[in-house]
C-alpha cells in the first residue's frame, strides 16, 4: 500500500484518531518492528451482525466483535492454546466435574467498575433463562453445567444453574458430567460476562454505542447498521498497556468482488478471496494472498430417514457415490484456495484429532472409480436400471459449481442421473430439516476445538442430523468420548464406521482464504477456529 492510498484511508476513516497510545510511532516490544502511526485495522464483514450482546450473538462476524468488546474467563493465543483472560487460572477436582476459576483483581468494566465473579454468574444464568430465550442456550447445556437443560426447558428455576460466586474473585462451576475440555469452552462468546446494571437500565437497547459497557480491550463507539461498526481502545482494560491497535473498523460489504476491489484500492486491511481467484491473486500479490486450514467441513448428506430413497438404504450405493467424487478436481479446479480434500468428517486441523486411516484416502482416484462401479453394480444399478436422485444446496456460486461437478462426475463414471435443486437459505433449511430431499449439502464450523463438535452432529438424536443416520455403536462411542481422557481410539473408530457406512460424503475441509495487508502483524493463521483478538494485532510502519 503506497503512501497516497494510506492517506486516502486516513481520510475515509476520518473522525477521530486516538493518539498518544504508548506504541504509536514506536517499535513493537518483542519483535522490534517499527509500528505505524495510524493503528487502525479495517476489515470487511459479509453481513450485518445479529447482535453484540454476548448471550444473544449467533453469527461469526458478531462473535468477532464481541471477542473484542468483552473478555471471558479464558482466551486463545495465536495457535489456539488456552491463555488467561479475566481468569488467571483454574483448578478442577479429581472427577473433573467441578471447576474453580480465579479472577484477576485488575479486570474492570469500561465504566470503571471491577469485573467480579457474579458478573459471570449473571451472564451464564441469563444465557439459559427462558425469558431471554438465547439462540445459543444450547451451548451452556453442551458445557454440561448442572441443571442447564432443565432450566432451558422451563422445568427448573434459573437460580439452580450450577455456577456460584464463592467471593468476588472466585467462580465455581459444577458440571453434571465430567468434561475434560470445559475450560476451552469458556473462550466462546456465550460465556462472556454481562453488565447487570446496564442491562437492567436499558433493556434490549443496552448494546447501542451510547449505552454499552464492556470489559474487553475495546469499546463500541459507532454503529451504523448495514454500513460500519467501530470499536476503539478501552482505557479501563486491564492489559490496555500492551494493546497496540487503537481502532477497529468493520465494514459491511455484501458483494465479495466489491470487497476485493476495495481491498485492492487500499480501503481494507483484510477481505475474503472469492472462490477460484486465489491462484491469480497469489501470483500478483504473493505477500498478501494467504490460505490456512480452518475448522469447518463441507459434505453432502444422504437422506436415510423413512422418506429417503430406497437406493440409499444400501451402504454400497452410498459408498460408490462417495468413492466416485474426485475431490482433487473440486479443491484444485473449482475452489483453488488451498482447501484440503476430505475423507473424514472431522477436519485434520482439529486439536487432538489424528486422522484415522480410512481405506478410501489411500487409493488412487482410478481405483476408487472402479470400486465404485463394482459396488453400484452389486447393488443392482447400471445402464438398465439407472440410479436417479435429487440433490439440494443453498444459493451460492461455489455451492452450485460443486453440485454441478458432482452430478457430472457421477453421470460420467456411474451413469447416475441427478436432479439439482438450488434453494434459498431458509427454504433449504426447512426442506432439509423436513427430510424432503435425497441428497443435501451440509457444512459445519466447530464451536470449539475438539472433534466432538463435528462428530456429535451424527449422533442419532442430534438436532443437526438431518440425514437421520442412526447407529447405536456411534452413539455409544460418542457418549464415552465425553468422559474419556484419551479419545484418539474412540474417534478413530467413529470415523471408520462413518467411512464404512457412508451416511455422508465428505468433500473438503475449509481454508481461510484472505487478502491480508502485509502491514498487519500477528494475524493468528495457526488458530484454526480463527478466534482472533484485535488486541493481539499491530500495524507495521511502511
Amino acid at each position: 500500500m503506497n503512501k497516497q492510498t494510506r492517506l486516502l484511508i486516513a481520510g475515509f476513516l476520518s473522525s477521530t484518531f486516538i493518539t498518544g497510545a504508548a506504541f504509536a510511532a514506536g517499535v513493537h516490544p518483542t519483535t522490534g518492528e517499527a509500528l505505524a502511526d495510524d493503528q487502525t485495522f479495517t476489515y470487511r464483514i459479509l453481513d450485518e451482525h445479529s447482535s453484540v450482546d454476548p448471550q444473544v450473538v449467533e453469527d461469526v462476524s458478531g462473535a468477532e466483535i464481541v471477542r473484542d468488546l468483552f473478555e471471558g474467563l479464558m482466551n486463545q493465543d495465536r495457535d489456539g492454546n488456552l491463555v488467561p483472560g479475566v481468569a488467571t487460572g483454574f483448578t478442577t477436582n479429581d472427577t473433573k466435574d467441578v471447576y474453580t476459576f480465579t479472577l484477576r483483581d485488575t479486570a474492570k468494566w469500561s465504566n470503571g467498575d471491577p469485573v467480579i465473579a457474579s458478573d459471570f454468574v449473571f451472564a451464564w444464568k441469563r444465557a439459559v433463562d427462558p425469558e431471554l430465550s438465547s439462540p445459543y442456550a444450547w451451548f451452556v447445556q453442551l458445557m454440561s453445567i448442572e441443571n442447564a437443560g432443565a432450566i432451558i426447558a422451563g422445568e427448573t428455576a434459573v437460580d439452580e444453574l450450577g455456577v456460584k460466586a464463592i467471593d468476588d474473585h472466585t467462580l465455581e462451576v459444577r458440571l453434571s458430567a465430567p468434561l475434560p475440555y470445559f475450560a476451552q469452552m469458556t473462550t466462546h462468546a456465550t460465556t462472556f460476562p454481562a453488565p447487570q446494571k446496564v442491562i437492567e437500565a436499558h433493556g434490549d437497547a443496552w448494546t447501542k454505542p451510547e449505552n454499552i459497557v464492556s470489559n474487553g480491550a475495546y469499546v463500541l463507539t459507532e454503529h451504523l447498521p448495514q454500513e460500519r461498526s467501530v470499536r476503539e481502545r478501552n482505557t479501563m482494560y486491564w492489559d490496555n498497556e500492551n494493546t497496540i491497535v487503537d481502532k477497529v473498523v468493520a465494514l459491511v460489504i455484501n458483494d465479495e468482488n466489491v470487497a476485493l476491489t476495495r481491498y485492492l484500492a487500499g480501503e481494507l486491511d483484510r477481505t475474503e478471496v472469492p472462490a477460484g481467484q486465489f491462484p491469480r491473486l497469489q501470483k500478483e500479490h504473493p505477500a498478501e494472498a494467504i490460505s490456512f486450514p480452518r475448522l469447518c467441513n463441507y459434505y453432502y448428506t444422504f437422506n436415510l430417514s423413512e422418506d429417503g430413497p430406497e437406493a440409499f438404504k444400501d451402504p454400497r450405493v452410498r459408498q460408490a457415490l462417495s468413492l466416485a467424487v474426485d475431490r482433487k478436481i473440486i479443491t484444485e479446479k473449482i475452489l483453488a484456495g488451498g482447501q484440503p480434500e476430505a475423507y473424514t468428517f472431522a477436519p485434520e486441523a482439529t486439536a487432538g484429532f489424528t486422522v484415522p486411516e480410512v481405506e478410501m484416502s489411500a487409493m488412487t482416484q482410478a481405483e476408487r472409480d472402479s470400486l465404485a462401479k463394482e459396488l453400484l453394480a452389486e447393488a443392482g444399478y447400471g445402464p438398465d436400471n439407472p440410479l436417479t436422485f435429487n440433490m439440494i444446496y443453498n444459493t451460492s456460486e461455489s455451492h452450485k459449481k460443486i453440485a454441478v461437478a458432482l452430478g457430472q462426475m457421477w453421470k460420467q463414471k456411474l451413469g447416475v442421473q441427478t436432479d439439482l435443486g438450488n434453494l434459498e437459505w431458509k427454504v433449504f433449511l426447512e426442506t432439509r430439516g423436513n427430510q424432503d430431499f435425497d441428497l443435501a449439502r451440509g457444512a459445519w464450523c466447530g464451536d470449539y476445538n475438539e472433534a466432538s463438535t463435528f462428530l456429535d452432529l451424527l449422533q442419532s438424536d442430534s438436532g443437526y442430523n438431518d440425514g437421520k443416520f442412526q447407529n447405536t455403536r456411534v452413539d455409544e462411542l460418542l457418549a464415552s468420548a465425553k468422559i474419556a481422557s484419551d479419545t484418539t481410539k474412540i474417534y478413530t473408530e467413529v470415523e471408520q464406521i462413518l467411512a464404512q457406512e457412508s451416511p455422508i460424503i465428505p468433500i473438503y475441509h475449509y481454508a481461510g482464504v484472505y487478502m491480508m495487508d502485509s502491514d498487519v502483524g500477528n494475524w493468528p493463521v495457526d488458530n484454526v477456529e480463527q478466534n482472533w483478538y484485535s488486541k493481539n494485532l499491530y500495524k507495521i510502519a511502511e
Partner: protein
Amino acid sequence: MIAYIIRRLLVAIPTILVLIIASFFLMHFAPGGPFTSERPLPPQVLANIEARYGLDQPLWKQLYDYLFNIIFHFDFGPSFKFKDRDVNDIIAQGFPISLTYGALSFLAASVVGISLGIAAAIRHNTWIDYVAVGLGIAAQALPNFIMGPILILTFTLWLGLLPGGGWNGGQWQYLIMPVIALSTSYMGSIARITRSSMLEVLNSNFIRTARAKGLPTRSVIWRHALKPTLLPVVSYLGPVFVYVLTGSVFVDIYFSTGGLGQAYVGSALSRDYAVLLGVTILYGTLTVVVNLLTDLAYAWFDPKIRY
C-alpha cells in the same frame, strides 16, 4: 381539486390495506421462519421466542395486532433479527440515506435528461442532436448493476479517486458513484421522451403562429413550447421517482450505503417479518403518494385537464 384529492386519498387506504394483507400472507407462506436456523433451536427455546414475538398466535390475530399497533401507536413492531432495534429505528436510520441517493439521482436524471432532450430537439439533425441521442441510448442501455461495477473499477481501483462504497455521513465523494449508477438509465429515457415530445410540439400550429408573429426563438421555446413538451415527461417522472427509490436497493447493497435496501433484502432472506412488511408498506405508500402528485402535476402543465 380538493374533492379530487380527498377522493384519491380515500382510495389509497384500501389500496395500502390490500398491500399489507397480501404481503403479510405471502411472507408467512414462504417456507422457513425467522428462527429457522442451521442448528434447530430446542423446542422449548423456540416456543419461548415465538411467544415473545406473538408468532404462536393464529395468523389473523397476528395481522390484527400488527395493524392495530400501526394505526394506533404508529409502531411497526420489533425486528426479529436485530434485538436492539425495532422497525421504526431501522427505517429512521436507513430511509434518509436511501432517500438522499434517490432524490439526488432523480434530480440528476431529470435535469440532465430534459436538457439533453431539449438541446437535441432544438438542434434537430445536427451533431448536437446525434451526440445527445447517442448519450441517451448509451445511458439507457446501462442498468445500475452494470454501471456499478464499471464505476468502481474505474474510479476506485484504476484512478483511485473515489471511495468504493460506504456512507460516512453523506460526504460528497461517497455520493457520486451511487448517484451516477442509479440515474443514468432514467436519464437516457427522459432525454429520449423530451426530445420526441419537443419535436412534436415544435411542429404544431401554435408554435408556427408564435414564430409567425415574430417572437424570438428563445421566447418561443421557453414560453410556449416547454410546458406542453414536459407533459409526457412528467407522466414518466412519477414512476421514475418510485423506481429510483426502490432501485436504490441495488445501489444500497452494491455500494454498502447503509440505506434501506440492504435491510430490505436482508429481511426477506432472514424472514424478519416485521422489517420486511414495514419497508414494503413504506415503499407502497410512497408509490401511492407519488402517483397522486404526478396526477396533480398534470393539471398544472395542461390547463385542459380539470379534476
